[in-house]
């Protein structure tokens, strides 16, 4: 891997970002994680997060540590990545209906009100949100992005894995990436 590039897995919550982190780890990449957020019922295999990422709007001083590694950066925080750094981003997409269903279950487990915004409105908001984010990323010369559909990945893993391996210029073990997929965890299908 290029030690000057920061490799990123991004997407909306519940779009398969943790799965992609695990796949890249098994495939041979080094992750930047702190394991502060532990595995739970929503992500039994773990979250693979680095807490300081949440501070990006105010503090990006940790970013050099991420060079040559993979770090999970939530879609919203992509906007706060400094322009003077090159990034390769695997951006996870998923059927919006499935995302909303899965998010609501997670909110219930966290004691949050899942009905605060009506599902139909949230689906429309998330679609627009993603569209704007894609436009934002497309305008950035320092961001190279590969959009991976979680639904395609679960349906035809080998094709998506091949795409990811090529995006990362080879050097990943596709078999081990394939073995990282636990189809039993694809629980919210619409």
């Amino acid at each position, binding site marked *: 891997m290029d030690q000057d590039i920061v490799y990123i897995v991004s997407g909306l919550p519940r779009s398969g970002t943790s799965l992609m982190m695990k796949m890249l780890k098994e495939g041979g990449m080094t992750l930047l994680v702190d394991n502060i957020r532990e595995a739970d019922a929503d992500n039994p295999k773990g979250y693979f997060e680095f807490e300081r990422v949440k501070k990006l709007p105010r503090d990006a001083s940790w970013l050099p540590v991420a060079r040559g590694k993979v770090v999970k950066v939530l879609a*919203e925080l992509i906007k706060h990545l400094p322009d003077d750094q090159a990034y390769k981003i695997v951006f996870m997409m998923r059927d919006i209906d499935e995302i909303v269903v899965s998010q609501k279950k997670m909110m219930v487990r966290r004691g949050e009100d899942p009905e605060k915004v009506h599902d139909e409105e949230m689906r429309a908001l998330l679609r627009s949100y993603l569209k704007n984010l894609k436009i934002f990323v497309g305008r950035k010369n320092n961001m190279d992005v590969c959009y991976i559909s979680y639904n395609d990945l679960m349906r035809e893993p080998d094709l998506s894995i091949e795409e990811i391996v090529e995006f990362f210029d080879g050097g990943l073990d596709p078999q081990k990436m394939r073995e990282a997929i636990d189809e039993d965890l694809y629980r919210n299908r619409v």
Partner: protein
Amino acid sequence: MAEERKHTTVSIPLPLYRKIKKRIEGTGFTSVSDYVTYVLREVLASLEEDEKEEVFSAEEEEKVKDRLRALGYLD
């Protein structure tokens, strides 16, 4: 007089080619080239529309951020 060429070659990554080939199985598309041509025409036609950002009110943006916070992904 030589006939004017009507097609040319464009390179795409092999994994993408295979993905498209799989996707068009059982559809009316007879080749990856046909499918790619169709998609590119569609994309070009709608490009102007696609490049227009959705207008988000402050309230709508806050609803999305509130959802992300509720899920533990934002401070």
